């Protein structure tokens, strides 16, 4: 069977292809999504993936964090199934394959609890959260004219969810940078009274009853839910920022793994958190690392870590270790196919950070591949003496029917030779 393998590169996406007469398998790899966590390197059952210069990439080099040998690759799809950041896409005969042994991919907004605020969207490091606002102040044409009223914001009650600001331009949120140490994306809520007509709608829309307005309620019905929020799973890194920020417990997320993140503090004098910042930069999907404001040293918040391991490879000073205890995959039981055990072993290898051992070929004689060669037309040679020989043999065959000769022959007697040749 002929197997063709080729590779194409366009922008930052590699397309690896394996074609046979009966099938076409495509493995796409978007290196911008990859952070060099090496999960696929350990999982690959044929060692077709090598880890690139992750440290240099973290600090600015534009290169793929992993290198895939497309000739060695078997297109089994383990890498695609197990990548925590969905940097791979695996297609079989044009269709995306859902692997039964893939990583769990569970994160969702519980609609009953969600009030449609913007907190989770603001903090999401991967932009996986999408949101649509159902209603705005400008949807109501009525406006109080020349009404002098008063609006108070109870700072103790307000959780800076931002609904009022999305609803009405009279509210202004002052943003601040989100980080693992300070996940609330806003500093404070300001009120611009020049924009306000004291319509009292904000009083109703605030989920925390933090706004009180003296004014006149204009006509019109507010919808039950202010906005709709959802998670796009193919971007989600299961970091838990949304879970941690949501004041209403409206997000469910299953991290793809558990373990320990260890920073070797004893060697921290080597660390240059501002100049290098490789750990901070490589952890773009989960934002675990930050520079502590307290002492200016590198620090991490394990709440957001999925123990992928990228920071360990990014740190040029070997200060970080990521220990994996478990990787959560989909249900493994009841998979009849013969490759289940290999896939389980792949997951074991990712946890123990060991690559598959390559076979030490102890003793083998290489066999050439057999291909038909051009055959020369060969002459079927016959000697002109053949007739004569036939006559001679005729005589011998006749003598073989003599019991006397045969007895001599069976007893190994030499004179049987002459007897056989007698006329």
């Amino acid at each position, binding site marked *: 069977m002929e197997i063709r393998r080729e590779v194409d590169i366009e922008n930052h996406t590699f397309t690896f292809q394996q074609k046979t007469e009966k099938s076409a398998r495509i493995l796409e790899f978007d290196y911008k999504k990859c952070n060099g966590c090496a999960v696929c390197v350990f999982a690959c059952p044929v060692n077709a993936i090598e880890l690139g210069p992750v440290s240099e990439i973290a600090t600015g080099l534009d290169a793929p964090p992993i290198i895939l040998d497309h000739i060695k690759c078997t297109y*089994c799809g383990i890498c695609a199934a197990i990548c925590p950041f969905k940097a791979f896409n695996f297609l079989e005969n044009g269709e995306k394959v859902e692997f039964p042994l893939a990583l769990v991919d569970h994160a969702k907004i519980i609609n009953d609890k969600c009030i449609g605020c913007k907190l989770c969207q603001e903090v999401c490091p991967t932009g996986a959260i999408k949101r649509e606002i159902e209603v705005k102040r400008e949807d109501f044409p009525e406006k109080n004219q020349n009404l002098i009223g008063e609006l108070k914001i109870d700072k103790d009650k307000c959780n800076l969810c931002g609904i009022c600001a999305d609803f009405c331009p009279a509210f202004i949120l002052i943003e601040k940078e989100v980080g693992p140490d300070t996940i609330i994306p806003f500093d404070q809520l300001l009120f611009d009274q020049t924009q306000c007509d004291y319509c009292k709608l904000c009083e109703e829309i605030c989920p925390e009853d933090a706004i009180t307005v003296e004014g006149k309620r204009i006509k019109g019905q507010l919808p039950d839910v202010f906005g709709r929020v959802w998670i796009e799973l193919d971007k989600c890194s299961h970091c838990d920022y949304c879970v941690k920020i949501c004041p209403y417990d409206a997000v469910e997320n299953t991290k793809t793994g558990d373990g320990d993140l260890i920073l070797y503090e004893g060697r921290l004098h080597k660390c240059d958190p501002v100049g290098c910042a490789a750990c901070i930069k490589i952890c773009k999907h989960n934002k675990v690392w930050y520079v502590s404001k307290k002492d200016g040293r590198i620090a991490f918040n394990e709440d957001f870590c999925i123990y992928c391991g990228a920071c360990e490879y990014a740190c040029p000073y070997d200060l970080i270790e990521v220990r994996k205890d478990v990787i959560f995959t989909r249900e493994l039981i009841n998979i009849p*196919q013969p490759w289940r055990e290999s896939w389980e072993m792949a997951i074991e290898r990712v946890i123990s950070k060991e690559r598959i051992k390559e076979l030490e070929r102890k003793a083998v004689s290489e066999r050439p591949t057999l291909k038909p060669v051009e055959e020369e037309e060969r002459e079927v040679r016959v000697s002109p003496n053949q007739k004569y020989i036939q006559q001679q043999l005729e005589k011998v065959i006749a003598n073989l029917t003599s019991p006397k000769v045969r007895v001599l022959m069976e007893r190994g007697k030499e004179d049987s030779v002459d007897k056989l040749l007698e006329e």
Partner: protein
Amino acid sequence: MSQSLESTSRTGVDMNIGVFVCHCGLNIARVIHIPEIVEYAKNLDGVTFVKDIQYACSDSGQEEIIQAIKENKLDRVVIAACSPKMHEVTFRRAVYQAGLNPYLVEIVNIREQCSWVHSETPRSATLKAKDLIRMGVSRAKKLKPLKRKKIPITKSVLVIGGGVAGIEAALDLADSGTKVYLVEKKPTIGGHMARFNEVFPNNDCSICILAPKMSCALTHKNIEVITNAEVTGLEGTVGNFKVTIKKHPRYVDEELCKGCISDCSSVCPVEVPNEFDYTIGPRKAIYMPFPQSTPLIAAIDREHCIGCKLCQEACEPDAINFDQKPETMEVEVGAIVVATGWKPFDARKIEEYGYGRFTNVITTYELERLLSASGPTLGQVLRPSDLVPPKKVAFIQCVGSRDEKTNPYCSRVCCMVSLKNAQIIKERLSDVDITIFYIDIRAFGRWYEEYYKRSQEIGIKFVRSRVAEVKEIEGKNLTLMYEDTLNGGIKEETFDMVVLSGGMEGGEDTQTLSTILNIPTGEDGFFEVAHPKLRPVETTVEGIYVVGTATGPKDIQDSLAQAGLAVAKILKLFMRKDAELEPYSGTVIEDQCIGCQLCMEICQAHNIIMENRKALINEAACKGCGVCAAACPTNAIEMKYFTDEQIMAQIDALGEEKNTYPLILGFLCWWCGYGAADLAGNLKLQYPPNLRIIRVLCAGRVDPEFIMRAFQKGVDGVMIVGCRLGECHYDFGNQYAIERIDILKDVLDKIGINPRRLKTLWVSAGEASIFAREVENFVVELESIGPLGEELQTIPEGGKHGDT
């Protein structure tokens, strides 16, 4: 079966012969041009029907054959397909279903002995296939209906473990008419013995003496071989056991797989150490354990398959099935034989010897595979690090035996095994220096001490010492540190390769099985027997017997003795029945017998007596070697299924057309020569396409007339291939062949024919590479001599006369 004997006795010119040519997917069709063969067969005399079939052995293929026989009223069938060792039984069954006597089918081997060995020369392979089919058709015309003896099946036995002891017990029981379920955990039966090279004390080729038993077990109508399976439950008591068997999926359809293995495994990207080579050679995740695997069906290893699915695409007959699930079956048996065997001691446990760390430290089991002609090096002794033959080899005895830290017991066979392997290495590499480090040499059986003596005589050194440590030094050489306890002194010596003579331990599943069957095990990990002296194969559970190495280290002969004993005990339980036998025996044609008594004189089995001045053969006892028939001056002995008439017809048919030069006719004995030729096919060894093979049961069957006739018909060379001398399956058949051939060579010489045109080759069924090489050498030799008759310097008068 009775109806078929009468219904098909038509002979002569009005015969309808059907020829079926199997593609075997591409296994045959890739090389041999099938349409050409089909057209050719149509023009052969007597052939009234020809058809090519994708897979003749498949259900639909068989159905096609059956239909064609019925519709075209065929009375002889020729099937050009794989080796008769593979599917003769299948096709006999099919032909029988069509109403023909099962012995009226002729198998023409165009796969193992043609397409697989001539992949590079398709044109010549096609010409060869034509010759073989022409010969087959001629032989088919002379086939006669034959009758087997029948036995009703009433009792059944479960044999657990398909090693030599289990196979032996299964065969003996099956021949007695007992239904046997032979359960084997691995994908093939054969156990350890199937992987060994040669076995002491007579250095028989291990697989050659075992493979016939393996294939016999597989095809025996009373044996159901269940591979990849384990016993998981047992209920009931003696005479009425109910056994639960779990059959693990192979992920390869046993009906559809053709055993070609090359297509699927060549695309498999996963390479792992082959446990069937004791890890010294590699295999793929879809694999055949070894070339003689029985059944010859691939298996997918669920530990290593990664799911790339390429094998599924590559498999032409679509035999790969990833959705196979474990099957549970229940069988009822009257008795159980446990023959679960042993496992090799893990030499890694003795760290100071460095196995697993030092490349050139190997185990005795790995050495067996290195020495085996079908092993990873095709029998070349090469040290692993650089694949060159070693110059200096050390054997360390008692590795994991007689050692308080590992196993205190003696493993009984390792001394003899090392003596044997040292002898074999010495035979193959004459300049090798071998030292055996031993505590005591235990050579305790008949011919064993003599064997030890012979080893000393051929220059193998013996040092009495338990080696303290092995160190790896530069160039991957190894330094042994030891105390010489005979001559005294702490010494060091450097070798290129060290062989650890690992002991035998209780089989992997001994404990699990002990729980299921409720039979005890000892502290050493082997099964206990009811009494070590007086009841050596009985267990504490009546009706369950343990044989072979499952009860402790044993050599093959002891294991077989135990298997036989267990069979006797079981048959004591059951009623004795007659076995069904192949009808291959001799019979005397009274009209032609002149009472010369030559046959009686030479039958070593003493199965021929004289009655009323005519020879009389005890057909029940006759095994059919045909040595007598080859000697009979008046051709008065008919060897059923291998008659003079049938073989002569093949020779004459070959002579009708000369398609190749030099043209060689081979007479190959069924047990070794034919087996070696088939194995050459399985291994895809290539040799020149000049040989046409006629199968005989024994080299001693080859009548001098056959050879003379072949030359008379214009073949350029005749080759007789039989078992290695001293290993004849009929004891002395090949000796008779040698003596006859010596005389015939003189005769040829005197006529003026170069006697080198008549060649003998004595190989084991495992020596495929020797067979292939010898065919090649013979072709070269015959080319140098020229076509038959070329060597005559001056042609006597009569010759010139004949020439005109």
